[in-house]
């Protein structure tokens, strides 16, 4: 089994497995964030649950962090190996004749997403970890009210941050446009090459980032105070 994950195909499978987990994570992240648009109370309740439930915090969260780090590190390793496999660069190469932009530029869309995750961690994750596990305040309260919704709205007041988020989500969409069906192919399934799943993948890679963009813009433009 160890040999399998050292092989080129095993690494593809590992990339796909972590991708599936991350795509599922993104979906639930979108659902929870969407609550902030429709019901601040519901958003607060769910945020508090996710932020304090031991199963989420100490089982799912470490798995998520591992999946994120693994997907990036393996992505870079594979990119470096692939660059080494190339010979002299072509003087003329017409990549657009046979493949999509998003499929050829996963490393660049991935790099933008990595930069976004750093920003996102500085914005939300580090302050959360600090409040909960360093300061030791697990109440989720600020001045007697749940703080989550207020913190979210506060963050999206800065137009620079909103702009960075929107650009990142567009690149995420492009990453998913190739990644969704690609993950099926790597797992040895031809389902990703059939119409149904291709349509679903396209819808997923448009709707998911669009959802996050709408949330960011909603709190910036409409919920401005």
């Amino acid at each position: 089994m160890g040999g399998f994950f050292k092989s080129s195909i095993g690494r593809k499978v590992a990339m796909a497995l972590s991708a599936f987990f991350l795509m599922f994570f993104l979906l639930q992240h979108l659902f929870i964030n969407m609550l902030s648009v429709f019901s601040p109370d519901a958003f607060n309740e769910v945020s508090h649950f996710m932020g304090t439930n031991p199963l989420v915090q100490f089982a799912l969260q470490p798995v998520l962090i591992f999946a994120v780090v693994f997907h990036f590190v393996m992505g870079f390793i594979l990119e470096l190996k692939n660059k080494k496999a190339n010979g002299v660069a072509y003087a003329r190469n017409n990549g657009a004749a046979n493949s999509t932009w998003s499929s050829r530029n996963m490393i660049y869309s991935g790099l933008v997403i990595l930069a976004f995750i750093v920003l996102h961690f500085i914005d939300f994750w580090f302050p959360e970890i600090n409040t909960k596990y360093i300061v030791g305040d697990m109440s989720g309260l600020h001045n007697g009210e749940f703080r989550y919704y207020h913190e979210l709205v506060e963050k999206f007041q800065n137009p620079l941050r909103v702009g960075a988020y929107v650009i990142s989500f567009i690149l995420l969409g492009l990453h998913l446009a190739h990644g969704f069906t690609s993950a099926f192919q790597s797992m040895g399934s031809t389902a990703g090459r059939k119409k149904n799943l291709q349509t679903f993948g396209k819808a997923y890679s448009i709707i998911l980032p669009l959802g996050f963009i709408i949330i960011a813009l909603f709190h910036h433009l409409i919920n401005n105070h």
Partner: protein
Amino acid sequence: MNLTLKIWRQADSSSKGQMVDYKVTEISEHMSFLEMMDVLNEQLVNSGDEPVAFDHDCREGICGMCSMYINGEAHGPDRGVTTCQLHMRMFKDGDTITIEPFRAAAFPVIKDLVVDRNAFERIQQAGGYISVNTSGNTQDANSLPISKHAADEAMDAATCIGCGACVATCKNSSAMLFVGAKVSQYALLPQGQVEAADRVQNMVAQMDLEGFGNCTNTGACEVECPKGISLDNIARMNRELMKATVK
């Protein structure tokens, strides 16, 4: 038609190559690309210059020898053809055509447009066969029922001519379409089952050893493949390797 050719010239595997410009005139649109190259070489020989070395053999699209990366695509801009079947009618009078060898670290240039594709042979030797003696004791074909679907897919995989266009096209220089086809043509048939696990493991190991890159499913290989080998073969190879691993 009159054309300007930008061709990669490299004296041998150890020298540094460069792009050199040539002019050819009065090229018929009915010529194949290789015939156009013949005209150029005749011109070069007559003027005392070294002709451009390029691979070719059958010139009817089946041997897989002719290569060339033409205007940024393996075997040029036409679909489902090798370079010998690429016709000059695909180009216009006055065009500048860029001609380079297939590029990959595992396909080193021998001279000009000729590359060493022996890595493919070594992958085949690692498992692209069945160890059944088929001479003299051939059994009746009807004694081994094979579904039409499996037979067709196996035959489609077996049409791979090992030209290396998939590797040349791939941004990762991955050989997975080739290896996928060679694994699939046996994986789909009962004759291939006995050695199935060893075959896929050994061929993938050899592929990795040769220094080919990792497939990222861009699908460029399938588009440029002169035989239209499907990406489904890569998925099947992945399944076969997973099956072999848990077996």
